[in-house]
């Protein structure tokens, strides 16, 4: 049963799994549509494995459940059944025993009563015979027989169960009472007396065989014993069995079972002899037969009640009584005979007897007791029990056959029902459980699937991120690889340009190539910057720098381009701008470079203004320096800026953070307001058609925004009156505490200066004059030559006490008119100072002419605040000197000129010194107002602006050659002149720390080519030692071998002057790397106030490396392979700074 169930269950499971598989397959097919093949494969394998595992788990759980429930069922069933069966069995045994015992007891009773009656008959017979002792006559005999008959009748009638009582006398006379149970008739049977007299012998044979004996039978009233019929002769065969002498041969009571034709049932007959008074001879034999009918009756009754069958057999197997109505005797024509039990007509009894015989044969157990359950007879199961009744001379065997159904039927049925119910219940539970498990695990598997999917998605995302990261990483790493060849190209072009053997044509071509290369490099840098910003690799430096100077440099740089485009570029920084701020100067410059570049690109005429102011409530109060339109703008933006102000105030109070506002204002084509936001996206240009016109990748503004955001600022385009674009941004930069108030404020108001601004550019003139006015300087303006002459004449002919003039001389179209103009102006030379504003392409002729005339105060365009301050200070200073000279009656000499010349050649580094000088002078100047020179100190800002037709090409090209360098790198501007002349690094002593011999050699040669003296060492330790002068002599020799090119003097120089001007330091070296060595050197410098410039040489081109280099105290950074030009400029800038 259980296995069947399992089989069914397995089948069910199989079908379920099949269904499941098919459903998952369809699910996967759906999946397939959406996802890429690769991912699908990945996911499907994952899913498949998870499906399998889910199947296995499900199967396992189900099988376990099935086993559990099966076991429970079987156990329950087993226990219920076993105990019921046990108790029932014992009860059944008792019942069977009891049932069988009763007929046997009845049998026993019958036997006993038979024996008693027999004994009683015998005793009575003895008594009667003794009382009739003297039997002399026939009458005596008759009398005795009558008496005997009466006695016998009394006994017979008292015992209804008796079948017959016979008395056979010694003389052969027989008296018998017989009860025919069938007809319920009672008969008296006797023999003819006449024949008895003669034969004395009590011989059975004689009696039976003697045909002459006549038998009579009289029917009697069963109650009273009266004769009711006549005596009839009957044949001997019809008579009943009479106990004869032969049955009591030994004089003891005998028992046997007999049959008679009057009854169907066997009879139990007992015989006893009647002894005479002397006990010596048998006078008669008394026989009593009892029908076993009553036993049978009892059995039937019992069986009726309990069903089943019973029978009694003799020891030999003859049936004595059964519980059925079947005849017990063979119905042969002859004398009826007893049947064997195995021949019984009743099927059950026959089979039971046969079964017993078959099982035990003749070897019954000694007690003859057999208890068998579950004997199969026919189609039913029976209990068979037999008991043995051991009577003397008549042992009996009782057998009871009970159908099992009768006793155990209910129990079996119940057990079966229970089993069925249990099994069906457990099946239900299993099915429900399986379904539950399916549902449950379905959820789990769904969750697992989801999770697997999620994991795969995460994986995919991670991969995507990684690949994006790789991309950025790749780009960032590529920077080195990309920049190197570009740098090489540019460097080689520089080398080519520095060669003198090129023809003009070649030179122009190479210059063009160089320009293109620079552009390409810039583009490359833009892309790399963008990728760097995007990959989050951009690390902003945090170093102090002079913001104003950087911006001025930037404006200087772009001015060349602007002048070529005929566009004014103006730097307008408010006075409250901090001079020194902390931040990443390169990036700040990059922001403005990109913005200005962008403006220049789209501005064909007009001006570009870079405004800057510090967010500070005060700055709004005195924004006189702002133009009117800007004022309005500021007002319109006030609401916004005020918010910033509030936040800024808070922050600036805490950590000196400042918000610096900048504007880049141009008069270009402008940007459509709808595109104001999108222009800051990568590769976006406001108008696609402009790409063709102006070119560009659209990366610039994107980088700008990224950088501005990175610096905690914001950039946006704001509305502007008139054409053009106004970009406004603010940056959060920290200003050092001590530097915040270090504005270069000089009070010019007390110097009685009159400035005449003769500038062609309207905007710059306006802004400059505003600023001058603000600072208390009287300003006059002239925009063209005629105006200038007018003003000059007015000024000097009116002879007003104090005037300062500033001019913008705009040359007219004639070729040589500038000479006349110079000559004209020269007339005022004695009375006014002329400051000549030079363009980058101002011709040498003009310059020499000016110099010849003594106009040595020249400034490069554009003019901005710092330059103006510088000019004013110098003028004041010069005036002071002149006053002094005048006081000492010394005419102006050329010495002064040269001094001034010198002072103007230099950068604005001396600004502070000059300003302090200037303030001193101004005091003196004001104390001597009467002096002619003081009165008429004029400044002439003269701009030599050439029209195309004015300047001869050759001149232009020459000047370009000189000044072109300036535009490229503002830092190097001081060095360019030197390049043209002698070797640029002449006289510098450089320590080179580099472990790779090849690079060492290359660098050495490069440096030596530039005129430097090089000492090369192999690692950081040696570098430190060399610097500390502890370098061993052997090492020195080694070095000297390395630089065999050097003059011998250089060797001695090394030994005598262990100090170096500069160190080139490789970062990765054995023993001690560059960083360590630098740290060591800087440590040793602490306290000495000495700072040797260290330039890092590294093959890494990443910003973080740079940062690291600068962090350990290096001053600059060069990448390998070494670029000739870059190295030169870097070294020069460093040594120059030091100088």
């Amino acid at each position, binding site marked *: 049963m259980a296995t069947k169930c399992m089989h069914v269950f397995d089948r069910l499971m199989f079908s379920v799994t099949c269904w499941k598989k098919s459903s998952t397959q369809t699910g996967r097919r759906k999946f397939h549509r959406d996802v890429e093949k690769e991912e699908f494969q990945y996911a499907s394998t994952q899913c498949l494995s998870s499906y399998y595992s889910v199947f296995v788990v499900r199967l396992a759980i189900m099988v376990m459940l099935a086993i559990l429930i099966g076991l429970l069922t079987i156990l329950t069933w087993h226990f219920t059944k076993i105990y019921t069966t046990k108790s029932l069995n014992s009860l059944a045994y008792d019942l069977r025993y009891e049932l069988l015992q009763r007929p046997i007891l009845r049998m026993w009773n019958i036997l006993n009563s038979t024996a008693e009656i027999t004994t009683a008959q015998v005793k009575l017979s003895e008594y009667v015979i003794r009382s009739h002792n003297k039997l002399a006559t026939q009458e005596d005999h008759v009398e005795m027989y009558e008496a005997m008959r009466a006695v016998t009748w009394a006994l017979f009638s008292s015992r209804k169960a008796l079948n017959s009582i016979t008395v056979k006398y010694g003389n052969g006379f027989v008296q018998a009472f017989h009860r025919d149970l069938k007809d319920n008739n009672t008969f008296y049977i006797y023999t003819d007396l006449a024949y008895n007299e003669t034969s004395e012998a009590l011989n059975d044979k004689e009696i039976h065989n003697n045909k002459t004996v006549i038998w009579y039978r009289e029917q009697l009233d069963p109650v009273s014993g009266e004769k009711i019929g006549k005596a009839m002769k009957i044949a001997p065969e019809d008579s009943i069995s009479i106990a004869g002498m032969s049955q009591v041969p030994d004089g003891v009571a005998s028992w046997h079972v007999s049959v008679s034709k009057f009854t169907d049932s066997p009879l139990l007959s007992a015989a006893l002899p009647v002894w005479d008074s002397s006990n010596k001879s048998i006078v008669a034999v008394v026989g009593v037969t009892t029908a076993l009918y009553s036993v049978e009756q009892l059995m039937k009754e019992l069986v009726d009640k309990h069903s089943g069958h019973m029978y009694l057999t003799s020891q030999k197997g003859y049936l004595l009584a059964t519980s059925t109505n079947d005849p017990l005797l063979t119905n042969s024509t002859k004398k009826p005979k007893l049947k064997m039990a195995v021949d019984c007509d009743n099927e059950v009894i026959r089979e039971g007897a046969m079964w017993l015989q078959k099982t035990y044969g003749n070897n019954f157990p000694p007690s003859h007791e057999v208890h068998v359950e579950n004997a199969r007879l026919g189609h039913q199961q029976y209990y068979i029990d037999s008991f043995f009744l051991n009577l003397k001379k008549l042992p009996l065997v009782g057998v009871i056959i009970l159908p099992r159904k009768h006793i155990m039927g209910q129990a079996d049925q119940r057990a079966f029902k229970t089993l069925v119910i249990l099994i069906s219940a457990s099946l239900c539970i299993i099915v429900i459980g399986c379904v539950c498990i399916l549902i449950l695990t379905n959820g789990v598997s769904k969750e697992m699937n989801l999770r697997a999917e999620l994991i795969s998605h995460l994986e995919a995302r991670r991969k995507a991120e990684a690949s994006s990261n790789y991309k950025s990483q790749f780009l960032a790493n590529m920077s080195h*690889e990309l920049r*190197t*060849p570009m740098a*090489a*190209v540019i*460097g*080689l072009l520089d*080398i080519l340009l520095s060669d003198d053997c090129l023809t003009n044509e070649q030179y122009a071509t190479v210059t063009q190539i160089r320009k293109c290369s620079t552009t390409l490099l810039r583009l490359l840098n833009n892309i790399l910057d963008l990728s760097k910003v995007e990959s989050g690799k951009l690390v902003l430096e945090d170093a102090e720098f002079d913001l104003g100077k950087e911006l001025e440099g930037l404006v200087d740089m772009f001015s060349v381009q602007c002048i070529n485009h005929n566009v004014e570029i103006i730097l307008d920084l408010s006075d409250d701008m901090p001079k020194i701020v902390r931040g990443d100067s390169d990036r700040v410059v990059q922001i403005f470079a990109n913005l200005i570049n962008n403006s220049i690109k789209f501005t064909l005429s007009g001006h570009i203004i870079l405004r800057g102011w510090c967010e500070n409530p005060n700055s709004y109060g005195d924004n006189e320096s702002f133009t009117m339109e800007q004022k309005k703008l500021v007002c319109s933006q006030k609401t916004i800026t005020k918010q910033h102000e509030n936040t800024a105030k808070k922050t600036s109070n805490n950590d000196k953070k400042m918000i610096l506002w900048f504007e880049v204002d141009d008069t270009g084509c402008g940007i459509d307001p709808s595109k104001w936001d999108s222009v800051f996206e990568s590769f976006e240009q406001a108008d696609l058609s402009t790409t063709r016109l102006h070119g560009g990748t659209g990366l610039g503004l994107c980088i700008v925004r990224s950088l501005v955001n990175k610096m905690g600022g914001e950039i946006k385009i704001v509305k502007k009156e008139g054409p053009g674009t106004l970009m406004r941004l603010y940056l959060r930069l920290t200003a050092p505490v001590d530097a915040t108030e270090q504005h270069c404020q000089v009070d010019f108001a007390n110097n009685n200066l009159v400035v005449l601004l003769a500038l062609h550019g309207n905007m710059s003139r306006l802004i400059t004059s505003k600023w001058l006015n603000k600072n208390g300087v009287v300003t006059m303006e002239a925009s063209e030559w005629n105006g200038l002459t007018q003003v000059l004449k007015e000024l000097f002919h009116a002879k007003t006490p104090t005037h300062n003039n500033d001019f913008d001389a705009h040359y007219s179209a004639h070729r040589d008119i500038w000479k006349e103009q110079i000559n004209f102006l020269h007339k005022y030379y004695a009375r006014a100072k002329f400051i000549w504003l030079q363009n980058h392409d101002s011709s040498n002729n003009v310059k020499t002419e000016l110099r010849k005339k003594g106009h040595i105060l020249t400034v490069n365009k554009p003019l901005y605040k710092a330059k103006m301050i510088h000019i004013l200070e110098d003028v004041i200073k010069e005036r002071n000197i002149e006053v002094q000279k005048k006081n000492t009656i010394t005419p102006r000499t050329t010495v002064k000129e040269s001094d001034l010349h010198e002072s103007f050649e230099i950068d604005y580094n001396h600004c502070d010194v000059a300003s302090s000088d200037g303030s001193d002078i101004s005091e003196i100047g004001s104390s001597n107002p009467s002096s002619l020179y003081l009165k008429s100190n004029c400044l002439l800002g003269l701009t030599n602006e050439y029209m195309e037709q004015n300047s001869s090409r050759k001149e232009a090209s020459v000047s370009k050659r000189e000044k072109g360098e300036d535009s490229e790198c503002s830092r190097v501007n001081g060095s360019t002149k030197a390049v043209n002349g002698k070797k640029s690094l002449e006289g510098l002593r450089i320590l080179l720390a580099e*472990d*790779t*011999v*090849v*690079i060492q*050699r*290359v660098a050495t*040669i*490069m440096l030596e*080519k530039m005129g430097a003296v090089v000492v090369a060492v192999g690692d950081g330790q040696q570098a430190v030692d060399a610097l500390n002068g502890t370098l061993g002599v052997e090492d020195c020799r080694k070095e000297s071998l390395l630089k065999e*090119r050097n003059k011998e003097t250089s060797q001695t120089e090394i030994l005598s002057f262990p100090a170096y001007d500069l160190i080139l330091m*490789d970062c*990765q070296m*054995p023993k001690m790397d560059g960083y360590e060595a630098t740290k060591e050197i800087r440590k040793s410098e602490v306290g000495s106030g000495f700072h040797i410039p260290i330039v890092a040489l590294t*093959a890494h081109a990443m910003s973080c490396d740079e940062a690291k280099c600068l962090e350990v105290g290096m001053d600059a950074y060069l990448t*390998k*392979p*070494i670029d*000739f030009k870059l190295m030169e400029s870097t070294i020069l800038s460093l040594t120059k700074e030091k100088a």
Partner: protein
Amino acid sequence: MDGKVQLQKQLFDYTASLFQEGFLDNQFNQLEQLQDESNPDFVVEVVTLFFDDAERILNELTTSLGQEKIDFKRLDAHVHQLKGSSSSIGAQRVHEACIPFRNFCTEQNVEGCLKSLQQVKHEYSLVKSKLETLFKMEEELLASSLADLKVV
């Protein structure tokens, strides 16, 4: 004289091919630029230095990669050195081969390292033979011009 011209042309073509095939890059040009009267054998000298250096480094790389426990940091440093020196003389392909090598070093990928080492060795031997040929040709050219001088 014709022979000399031919030699010159040959040398020129050969050099051009070296550049074209990427064995050399601009750095080599720069080196040649640096060579002048004061340093007549500068290029040869530097390249020989490079050969010595590179062979030493390659040997070290081979031995350290053969070891059971590989010191990747040291390996990386060596490769870095080789990369630096190769880039300095303009041996571009060696330089390029060093880049993945370094990446493998940082990944600690032994297999990749071995592969890269083979690659580097291969490139190195190639560039070495090429450069040697180049120098030989230059020498021949020089010899021929000397011979010319003698003839004249």
